Every structure is written in structure tokens, then in C-alpha cells.
């Protein structure tokens, strides 16, 4: 179940999932935390340059594997490619939106190991070995996530462009505070900007989602 994956991501002690060592189709990549062992296992001939305790990812594109919404997704990225661009332009997951591209608006928010992150300020390589949850991963088939359902019921959007990021921050809020106070909702959503100014409805939706089990 998607929800269960999400909860596990949220409650997992920091660092645990980063220990996983992913082998992509052509490139072996390391997750955080086990750099030495993992790199010792990595095949240096697969596009990576291995020398003197340093593995170098050269300029240019290589295939890596990202764990997105519980599935392995192969994407071809450069070292400079952001996670946002990798998802949108390589994996075809365009639910995560690009607006400011500088970490100021929150439209690109997703969950990395259960915690909110601006995917525009995250290198795709830094997401290797970590659990990525995007807006596409919230619903269970036709059944919307409680937060999504609450956004629909509260009509918590106008143009809708900030909505995926707003929903992801709302999910992160409810994972942190199962029954948040209005102040906590505002604090946890303070990284998301809505040009249309639908904040009142958004805060209402988060409160309603909490009542409907969105935080559990």
C-alpha cells in the first residue's frame, strides 16, 4: 500500500534507507552512509572514474536508478541534473511542478525518506538510494489519499499549479503532527506559496484531512 510505504518512510530512523546500495542497469551508485564499502563494490568501469578513495561521476549523462513511489525508475542524468528535472523530463512524472526553481516557492516539494524537500535544490544523484514520494505516489489506485480528498472537498485550489507541492507539504505536516494546531499547519506549510491566495481553504483541508486519518 502506498500509504504504508509513506508511513514507513516517515518513521524510519534517519540514515537507514540511505544505506542501501543500488545497482542501476549500467552504473553502480552509492547511497549515503556506506560510501567506503559501497564504492569498493562498485564497478569502476561503468562510466564512473575510480581512483584513490574517490569515485568521480564525469560530466555528461549516465543512467542511475531512483526509487520513486516504491518503484525503481531508471533515469539518465548529468551530475548537475536536479531531482526535479530528472523526474519531470526523464521519468515523465510531471506532477511535481517547477516554478521558481530556487527553493523559494515550494511547488516542487516531494518527500525524501519521508521528509519534505525542494526537488529543485536537490541533485538527482543525491536522491540515489533514498525513498522518493511524489504527488503521483499518494493515491492508492482510484482512492485518493486523505489529504487529496480533503483538498477536493474543501475546494482548496484555484489555478492548481501550487497544489501538488501544497499537498506534499500537507502530508509531511500530518506525518509530523497527527492532529495539528492551526499554528502548526501554518508553520509546516510556510514553504509553499499560492499565487491565488487560497491559503484559508488549504489550512481547512489539512485540518479536515487530520480528522479523516490523513496523519495516520
Amino acid at each position, binding site marked *: 500500500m502506498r500509504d504504508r510505504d509513506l508511513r514507513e518512510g516517515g518513521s524510519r530512523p534517519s540514515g537507514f534507507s540511505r544505506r542501501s546500495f543500488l545497482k542501476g542497469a549500467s552504473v553502480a551508485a552509492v547511497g549515503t552512509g556506506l560510501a567506503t564499502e559501497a564504492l569498493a563494490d562498485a564497478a569502476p568501469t561503468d562510466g564512473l572514474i575510480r581512483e584513490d578513495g574517490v569515485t568521480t*561521476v564525469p560530466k555528461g549523462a549516465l543512467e542511475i536508478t531512483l526509487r520513486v513511489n516504491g518503484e525503481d525508475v531508471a533515469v539518465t542524468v548529468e551530475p548537475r541534473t536536479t531531482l526535479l528535472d530528472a523526474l519531470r523530463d526523464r521519468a515523465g512524472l510531471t506532477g511535481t511542478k517547477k516554478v521558481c526553481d530556487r527553493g523559494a516557492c515550494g511547488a516542487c516539494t516531494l518527500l525524501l525518506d519521508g521528509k519534505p524537500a525542494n526537488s529543485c*535544490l*536537490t541533485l538527482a544523484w543525491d536522491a540515489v538510494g533514498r525513498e522518493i514520494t511524489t504527488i503521483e505516489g499518494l493515491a492508492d489506485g482510484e482512492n485518493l489519499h486523505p489529504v487529496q480528498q480533503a483538498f477536493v472537498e474543501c475546494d482548496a485550489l484555484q489555478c492548481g499549479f501550487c497544489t501538488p507541492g501544497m499537498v506534499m507539504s500537507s502530508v509531511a505536516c500530518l506525518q509530523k503532527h497527527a492532529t495539528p494546531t492551526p499554528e502548526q499547519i501554518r508553520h509546516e506549510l510556510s*514553504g509553499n506559496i499560492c499565487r491565488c491566495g487560497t491559503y484559508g481553504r488549504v489550512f481547512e483541508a489539512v485540518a479536515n484531512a487530520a480528522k479523516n486519518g490523513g496523519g495516520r
Partner: protein
Amino acid sequence: MNAFELSLPDTLADAARKAGPNSAFKAAGIDLIDRLKERIDDPETVVDLLRLRDELGGIQATANGAVRLGALTTLQELADATALDAPGFGALREACGEAATPQVRARATLGGNLLQKNRCWYYRSNAFSCAHDGSGDRCLAWHGENKFHALFGTVDCVRVHPSNAAPALVALGAEVEIRGADADSSRRIPIRALYPQSPAARAPEHVLADEEILVAVHLPASAAAGRSAYRESREKLSFDWATTAAAAHLVVEGGKIARASVCLGAVAPNPWPLDDVAERITGQTPSRELFADAARRAFRRAQPLRHNAYKVEVGQAILVDALAAAAGLED
């Protein structure tokens, strides 16, 4: 963003060896990726530190009450840290818990926060020349749009230091642990020595050499005593860069201030310690009147620019609030 190669070192020693004049260290990359996108920085190699959790991560309280904060500790981890529960550490938890946004706090690291570059809009835009980045010969902010710029301590560049954590750590008497190219070149310096003595245009914004890595921040046991507080003003309350900030650490004994340490943020190119304020209020009975008088004196030496004189009034209020909170006078 120009292309770069990404180096994934096995250890801190490998990271230091890989660094050079054309490289940049990266932790979460919050500030670095922004600068790369704006083409303010253009390194050939980005040396990744984020995977070196074993050497750069973790919060450890020692038996004598001192606390070691690994450089990769995130701002959110600091805000929530049970090891920092003592009211003496309050300023650091508050500064980190209010910094930026939840998304940024969840990833941004302590080391990156302390070493981030200034936010002057002339410096941050390659559409403008700038004395600090070397693209121009004079500071455009000095006589231009300088609403968010410095009141104190400027030479020929009116940038302000953007870190929330730095003034709190200065007030708490923290030290930073720095590792050089080889292990025996490690050193520990007071955090105020992390920033340049003369913060002129073109002067590096911190004193670390190319191959040096900020490994950890050490809080002395004395920081746990008493109470500390951090307050900041912003244009936008939900999240914004501080327009003024103040951190205060006070130990009150028998109704008198036995020990004080105070530092301003967002008003000078470096965190701006107020040792004279600390000295003036030590031995006194804490009161809002005492703090207001001290704040007035502290801001008497301010040199406002055309558009930032408001910082003199606002900064005094923020300083009084921080002192009052640290003295337990609030509410």
C-alpha cells in the same frame, strides 16, 4: 548551470585531497545549487560531503555537558534535538527552527548554513556588476537599493551575513572544528574567528582554505547554563530572510545577571557580537529598561544607508526582545 564533475569521496581525507581552487564542497547543496544556477560559482568539480555521515554527522553530548554537533546535522534536527533541551541552548534551537522553510530545514546542514554566501541582490544576480565578486570595481548596493544591507562593520561592501545559526552560536561561545588536507592539520577556533577580520569586497566570506572542511561545531558546557533566546524581524512572517536578528545568552543568579553574551545577525557582513552590551548589563538586575538602554547604546554606532535606517529601530526592539526572553522576562 554549467556542467561539473561530481566527486564522491570515501572519507573526509579523500574529500580534502580532492579539493582545490576549481572545486566546491557540497553538503545538501541548498546554497551551492542556487549559486550554480545563477552562475555566480562555476566549479569544475563538486566534491560531495553529504555521504560522509559517519565522520560529519550526529549530535553527541559529552559527560561534562559539552555538545558536539556534526556539520551535516540538519537545521530541523537541531531544532528538535533533545541534546539541546537545556534552556541555555534555546537560541540555537529557535534560530534553526525558524530558518527558511520546512523543506529547506529538513535538508540544509549546519555546516552549509554557517558557510553560505551572502544574499545581496547585486551579488546574487549576474546581471549586475559587483565589487565583491570581482565583476565590478564598486559596491552598487552602497548607493543603490540597500534596504536589506549592513549597518555595522562594513569596509567597501555592505553585504550582511545571512546565517540564523551563526549569531546564536556566537552568543553561546561555540567553537568550530576544521580539518585541513591531512588529519594533523585539524584545528578548533572560536566561531567568530570563522569569519574574516576585515570583511571587504572580494574578501572570502569565511576563513577556510580550499581544502579545509568544517567538521563539527562544539558547544561548551557553559552554554547549557542559564537561558538563551533568538529573535528576528522579517518583512514576511511566514518565511523570509531576517532583516535584523539578535541572540542573547544570560545566566541570572540571585536576581542579577551573572553572565551575558549577545550577538546580532543580518546587520553586518559578519555576525556582530555585542561584547560591550554584555559587559554593561552584567551585574545588573534584568529589566526591559536596562535592555532598552543597552540596545540604544549598541545601535548608536550604526551607520545606516539610504534605505535601511529602519533597521536601527527594529534592531533595537529585536535585541530587547531577545534579552528579555533570555532573562525570562517575556510575557
